[in-house]
């Protein structure tokens, strides 16, 4: 397998399995399965970690409070007065992206294919191949998230300004601006998703290349930078930009 083939194979999103429902054959991609894993972990954590809260925080409660406080303060600093309506959405996106972008840290966990080769157990042969790769490496996922964020921006503008106010914001300061303002609603999700996709895919490819070139210590350092630092940074940028757009839409 040459390098180009290896990389394009690594980039590709694969259909893991499909099932039949509502009269359609519905495919499930590996990025969706990884998403399910992340969402499952987040839901379990959010339900178990928020039990038995005490006035004086300790242990796990501290971590939960720091996370929520961070999300609240990001939202507060960019949106201001109406932050309560948006903090849960931004928090959801932030937590999901942080986990999604950094999940290749857990790439050490062998795929079922490797487990089958390693152990020879029949059991693993029947499990579809799932490699733990960041779902945000899949452009489709990013585009969907960016479109959802823009829908939130639009919805926020309509809700807090009313239809008239929102239409007014399109002609502000001059009616000449209308085409650009409308273009904004297409450019913003494109830039949001392309930025995230490019960063995560680039980091993923660089780390893959490093594993091919120098499989020992060197990729670990790259992993820490690209997967942890860049992953968290990109998650923050995505949420921050979305919050800026929302703030602009409702002010």
């Amino acid at each position: 397998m040459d390098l180009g083939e290896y990389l394009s194979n690594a980039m590709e999103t694969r259909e893991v399995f499909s099932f039949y429902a509502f009269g359609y054959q519905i495919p499930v991609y590996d990025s969706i399965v990884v998403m399910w894993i992340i969402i499952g972990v987040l839901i379990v954590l959010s339900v178990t970690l928020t039990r038995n809260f005490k006035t004086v925080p300790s242990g796990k409660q501290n971590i939960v409070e720091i996370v929520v406080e961070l999300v609240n303060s990001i939202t507060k600093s960019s949106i201001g007065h109406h932050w309560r309506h948006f903090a849960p959405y931004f928090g959801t996106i932030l937590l999901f992206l942080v986990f999604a972008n950094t999940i290749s840290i857990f790439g050490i966990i062998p795929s079922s294919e490797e487990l089958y080769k390693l152990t020879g157990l029949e059991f693993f042969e029947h499990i579809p191949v799932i490699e733990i790769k960041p779902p945000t490496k899949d452009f489709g996922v990013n585009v969907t998230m960016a479109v959802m964020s823009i829908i939130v921006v639009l919805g926020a503008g309509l809700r807090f300004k009313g239809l008239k106010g929102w239409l007014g914001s399109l002609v502000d300061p001059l009616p000449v601006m209308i085409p650009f303002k409308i273009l904004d609603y297409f450019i913003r999700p494109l830039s949001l998703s392309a930025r995230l996709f490019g960063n995560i895919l680039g980091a993923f490819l660089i780390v893959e290349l490093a594993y091919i070139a120098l499989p020992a210590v060197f990729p670990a350092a790259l992993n820490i930078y690209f997967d942890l630092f860049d992953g968290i940074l990109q998650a923050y940028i995505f949420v921050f930009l979305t919050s800026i757009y929302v703030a602009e839409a409702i002010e």
Partner: protein
Amino acid sequence: MLKSITAVKSIWVALNLLILYFTLKKFLFKPVTEFMDNRARGIKESIENAEKNRAEAQKLKESFEEQIKNAKLEADKIIEAARAKAEKEYDSIVSSAKQQAEALLVKAREEIDRERQLAMREMKAQVAGLALAAASKVLEANMENIDNRLLVEKFIDEAGAA
């Protein structure tokens, strides 16, 4: 890259994220934010209460100090008055005692004088009788008449005066 965008995938992603959103909102963001807000409010209230209580205590302390000061002044005044009264009482008791003592002394002196005069008079009478009896024995004569008796008494008076 573009072929990785499919409607089914977008629906999956949107569905997943909506489920995650509603779950996290219900179990994480809403309750934790409310909890922290309540705690912040509680802390603010207790700090305000503490401040209020402190101010109240300060006011009470000042009023107590004022009262203590007044009480001290009052006590001083009472003690001073009592001392003055006691002094007066003392003086009056002492002076009345002195007067009584003097009066007793005077009375006693008068009594003594009177007793002495009485005794003197009785003694004179007895001495006169004895002298007459002695003289009559000496003279063997009846000198028991009035003239002699007056003579003897006169003599005794003279002797007493001398």
